[in-house]
């Protein structure tokens, strides 16, 4: 008793083949889409890899690129088969490979589903990488003369302006590190010496933030320095002032950016998985309907199409039996070989 049996005549077969061919070309475009999304994600990770300590995992974008390419190949091949399926002579040369191809397609669909799940799950390692990387990024903000780190200041400034954020968790992170290079500090000045002497590490700490933290929407010119000192500025109360600098932390901002990107890519990959399952089922119908022609020489004869030749349970037991037989067959061969060897001696 076949699973989901459908009767086909010539007209229905032709329509099925044309529809599945059409869907295969959509699937090729979907494969190109997955490939380009993987490429885009990889480029975005590269652009900001400085902020993640060059430590970020490129596993997910590489997987997406690989799956996109394989999807293009499989779907183009499937489309070619569908196109030839209407011509018995051409279809005869594809017939032997079809079963293996369909099994391979099922495996590919499972892998695609796993990729979609990964897109949604890999947000968590990214969070840790970002937290660590940003903390180090801020530490190296002042090292504009150290080779290999001289662009950290510019990268961090541009990122804070672009993502409208300040510091790691919030702007107070800047109060805890020295972000002015020693080259621009006048060590003969009493004020500088006091500040450096006032903490254990000998760092020039101040309650100021870089200019890139400034919020352009603030009605007053930006207050960057002496932020916690209300008397240093006219009509200023740092407890109630909200618009002066960006309130959001950059870890949260970057995470929501990358998280949103990954969620969208995951949703799209799920849709592509559904499309792939659809075309695989369609190809199975095409294959089974062309295999069961009542009269092989008459193209207008009736035929039947199905998803599985027997029911799910029977197919499963068949597969298990086949695997056991293969396992026993190897054992029997080994036994026979072992038996033969002593004989020959």
């Amino acid at each position, binding site marked *: 008793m076949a699973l989901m049996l459908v009767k086909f005549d010539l007209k229905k077969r032709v329509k099925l083949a044309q529809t599945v061919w059409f869907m295969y070309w959509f699937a090729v475009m979907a494969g190109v889409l997955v490939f380009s999304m993987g490429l885009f994600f990889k480029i975005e990770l590269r652009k900001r890899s400085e902020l993640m300590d060059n430590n970020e995992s490129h596993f997910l974008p590489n997987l997406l690129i690989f799956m996109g390419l394989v999807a293009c190949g499989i779907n183009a091949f499937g489309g070619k088969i569908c196109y030839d399926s209407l011509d018995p002579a051409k279809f005869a040369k594809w017939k032997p490979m079809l079963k293996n191809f369909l099994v391979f397609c099922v495996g590919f669909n499972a892998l695609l589903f796993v990729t979609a799940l990964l897109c949604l799950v890999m947000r968590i390692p990214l969070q840790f990488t970002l937290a660590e990387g940003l903390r180090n990024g801020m530490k190296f903000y002042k090292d*504009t*003369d150290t080779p290999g780190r*001289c662009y950290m*200041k*510019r990268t961090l*400034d*541009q990122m804070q*302006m672009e993502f409208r954020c300040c510091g790691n968790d919030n702007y107070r992170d800047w109060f805890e590190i020295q*972000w*002015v*290079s020693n*080259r*621009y*500090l*006048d060590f003969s*000045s009493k004020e500088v010496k006091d500040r450096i002497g006032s903490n254990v590490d000998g760092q020039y700490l101040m309650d100021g933030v*870089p*200019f*890139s933290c*400034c919020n*352009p*929407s*603030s*009605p*007053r*010119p*930006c207050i*960057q320095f002496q932020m916690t000192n209300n008397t240093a*500025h*006219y*009509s200023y109360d740092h407890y109630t002032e909200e618009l002066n600098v960006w309130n959001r932390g950059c870890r949260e901002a970057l995470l929501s950016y990358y998280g949103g990107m990954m969620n969208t890519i995951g949703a799209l990959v799920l849709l592509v998985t559904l499309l792939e399952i659809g075309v695989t089922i369609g190809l199975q119908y095409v294959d089974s309907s062309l295999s069961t022609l009542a009269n092989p020489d008459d193209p207008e004869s009736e035929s039947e199409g199905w998803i599985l030749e027997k029911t799910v349970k029977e197919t499963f037991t068949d597969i298990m039996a086949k695997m056991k037989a293969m396992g026993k067959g190897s054992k029997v061969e080994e036994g026979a070989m072992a038996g033969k060897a002593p004989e020959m001696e």
Partner: protein
Amino acid sequence: MPFMPVKFNLQKRVKLAQGLWMIYWLSVIVGILIFSLGIFFKIELRKRSEMMDNNESHLVPNLLILVGLLACGVNAFGGKVCHDSLDPIKFAKWKPMLKTYLLLCCGFNGLLLLTGLLCFLMQFAVYLTLAEGLKNSIKFYKDTDTPGRCFMKRTLDMTQIEFRCCGNNNYRDWFEVQWISNRYLDMSNDAVKDRVLSNVEGKYLMDSVPFSCCNPGSPRPCIQHHLTNNTAHYDYDHRIEELNIWTRGCREALFSYFSSMMSSIGVLIFATIILECSVQLSAQYLTTALETMEDPENPECESEGWLLEKGVKETLTDCLTKLKTLGKGNQVEEGGDAQEAT
């Protein structure tokens, strides 16, 4: 003697019709492209209209939108006619309109030429509008509590950050205006009172710039205040310091942005003119080839196609005489009416 005649048999006619149909669809796509470029340009002008005193001329983008729509319509119609040209029955219903259609296409090409020229010439107007608008923007930077101008500060800050520029001509423009609102100045402070009194108009001027002028590529934290005072900052010489703030003026930055956009659109329009002209010529050939079939019932007969029925000079004299008779016809009619009335 027809102008540039070409002999056609059935195969050549079919090939010409098919090729022309494809080029017509390409032209429709180009028309859509021009339309979307017009919309993009209009949106860009709107986005930055605050920088231009809301005074900018929307002539060029409106014209581009109109031309794009017309191009789509004209070329789609031409494509339909081409598609039907291979079937004599369908072609018969289009035949009477074809001459007027081709004349309309010539007029449309003239409009395209005008649009292309405007794309290049209107850049001067944009430059002048920008200069005026930016000067006023800098003046109104501090008015964040005046309704209608409260977003000028934000717009100007974001423009300076995005286009990497400072001030109108350069950063010294900020030294000449008061860009801090009086609400944030402590008028009881002696230093503030001195500054306000030190100039005729009673403005609080200083040698500082807003934070949006800062260059992130500078190796040292941004120096915004006391820019001309070397002793106010350690190891600082304002004459040789180049990376501290953006040195370019915003008028130059915005103008180069808009002018490159308008130049590219202009070049595209000129390419479209060439495409449209070639399409028109091919359509004329197809029309004449289908009209001069020796045996109208036999589709496989030979025919001749040309650009003009007579030579160029003769066609011009014909047009002029036609125009004169039209004029004279009106006068004769008027004379006849006048006589009848009396």
